[in-house]
């Protein structure tokens, strides 16, 4: 069980690719350095798109785990 203080949670379950990533990008754009963003996505494409974008944008992928039919990502805005 995660005890991290999430700044904003994005429930993108049911949203088709690239909706979950786009919502994350939008949230990070509005956020502050250090903020933690949680994304819940049932789209298979998120498993590659989200980690790839986080790496490119030099943020931090804090946690990735599979839940019941969806993936759970926690990303820290690093800069």
């Amino acid at each position, binding site marked *: 069980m995660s005890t991290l203080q999430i700044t904003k949670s994005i429930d993108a379950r049911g949203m088709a690719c690239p909706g979950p*990533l786009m919502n994350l*990008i*939008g949230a990070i754009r*509005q956020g502050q350095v250090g903020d933690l963003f949680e994304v819940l996505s049932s789209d298979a494409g998120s498993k590659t798109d989200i980690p*790839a974008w986080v790496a*490119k*944008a*030099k943020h931090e992928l804090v946690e990735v785990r599979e839940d019941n039919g969806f993936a759970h990502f926690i990303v820290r805005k690093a800069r």
Partner: protein
Amino acid sequence: MRNDVLILGGGVGGTIVANLVSKEVGDRARVTLVDTTGTHVYQPGFLYVAVGREKPAALRRPETSLIREEVKLVVDEATLIDPKAQKVILKTGRTMRYDELLIATGSRTVLDEVPGGAGAHDFYTMDGAQRLHRALEVFVAGTIVIGVAGIPYKCPPAPVEFAFLLDDYLRSRHIRERCQVKLLSPLNRAFTIETTSKLVQPILAERGIELTGFFNVESVDPIAKTVTSLEGETVDYDLLVLVPPHRGQKVIEASRLGDERGWIPVDKNTLMHTQFDHIWAIGDATNIPISKSGSVAHYEASVAAAEIAAAVKGEAPPVHVYDGKVMCFLETGRGQATTVSFDYDHPPVSPAPSVFWHWAKVLFNKSYWHTVPQGRL
């Protein structure tokens, strides 16, 4: 007693709903359409204005020429919606009450949200498209950069289409070899939909259009002529074309009917406001996870109209709901186009670009005025 059906916004969605509800309910309701200008503008034509292939006058018609006689047009701007009192206040001070309200106010572009971006070009307004065309007419050599400064934005294919039409335009002026065209995509591919990206990326490469992925425009330095991404990259330009950030209309924000960007939360199938009865919203104005495009507003309009008509008549809501249907054309240049057609449950399969789909788009654009606003198509 007659019901009052009030429609805010005379774009494609609002106009179709006004006509269909009026036709369906007859004397049982007064249908009033409030529009800020009273002029209907065919926004998909802006792309063509930017590259000199369409005249602005061909994209405008008086709203009165597109609505049924029974629909009353009020040229004014809604400034506040009171969902509890079921009233809308207009800029002139007039108050209008409603029994059923459709919000089809679209979106607005806010280029000034991009630091340094206020002077960049865009093709999301008529003025922007005309200004961009004037800049292209005097452009003779250098780097033209096309970037995306915010998501969601209207018409997801537009940046890719513009890149292809720009390539055609520069070739027609015999200056293509002196120009670089760079397309900066917010994703790690050219287009939001992967299958369509796979179709268009080889064509971009063949035309010499350079694609940079994961480039979400964050700021512009108009003195140094550079554009910098949220991901930390910087690109030089001579002429910058940005897809501006979009927001919902001010009336939605002022009335607290939307989220932090002014998008109205609606049920993705019934298009009814998630918190307030007697309010529907369609088109760009909503927060549903689907393209912001005229096509969406077009398909949603018949659903919202049927639901509003049923409410007026005191009947049960219709069984048919909005299923996420979208159908867009995507110009690939050199007189060819493909399509992007999908719904909530079926991902798109775009056909190979062909002359057929280009002419289908041309035909649709020309026949629009006589078919779509009236709800005939």
